[in-house]
């Protein structure tokens, strides 16, 4: 596609339920990132994929969070047993190469609200 696509754009869920957030990167982009942005905060790194493997999972806040990427393309971020502190905007980005000067393109994000 033309850009990074994330779905759903908004998700309201009850505390304790599981949610899945989807990211479709730009076609051909090998690197994919997940970030979390809480209200009034900066971006918190969650996980990074190069192809289907995740060299850096250091940002996942707890074992309730997991992510996978299949076919070197679509990625899913899953949050189990959601808590109110999980409420945030979850942003996905992709880039064409692994490399320090490579620009990352961001999606519009999924706004997750846990009630």
């Amino acid at each position, binding site marked *: 596609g033309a850009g990074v696509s994330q779905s759903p754009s908004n998700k309201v869920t009850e505390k304790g339920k599981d949610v899945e957030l989807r990211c479709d990167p730009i076609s051909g982009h090998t*690197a994919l990132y997940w970030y979390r942005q809480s209200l009034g905060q*900066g971006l918190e*790194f969650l996980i990074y994929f190069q192809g289907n493997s995740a060299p*850096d999972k250091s940002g996942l806040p707890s074992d309730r969070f997991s992510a996978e990427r299949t076919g070197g393309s679509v990625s899913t971020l899953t949050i189990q047993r959601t808590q109110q502190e999980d409420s945030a905007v979850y*942003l996905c980005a992709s880039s064409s190469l692994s490399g*320090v*000067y490579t620009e*990352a393109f*961001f999606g*519009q994000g999924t706004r997750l609200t846990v009630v």
Partner: protein
Amino acid sequence: AQSVTQLDSHVSVSEGTPVLLRCNYSSSYSPSLFWYVQHPNKGLQLLLKYTSAATLVKGINGFEAEFKKSETSFHLTKPSAHMSDAAEYFCVVSDLGTDKLIFGTGTRLQVFP
């Protein structure tokens, strides 16, 4: 570990006056640095990036940034602010080992008429 510090959480300027958003980085080697902008209810957009080819980097919408190794700084400037510049600005460093983008906490720019 690499990190960035944005020295101001909020900056307010009048339309037509210069803009200065400050960023300092910490890195044990030559970093790659970016500035991203986030307008309300919109996605993050790259303003400019430092690629080591030139220390003064020009970006979109009249913004530029100067890489100063001696000061470990990468401040963002614009000669004349426009109302449409009101947004959140993030200074970002790329981790050489992992390609992870490390974001600063952001600076909210307000522009008054």
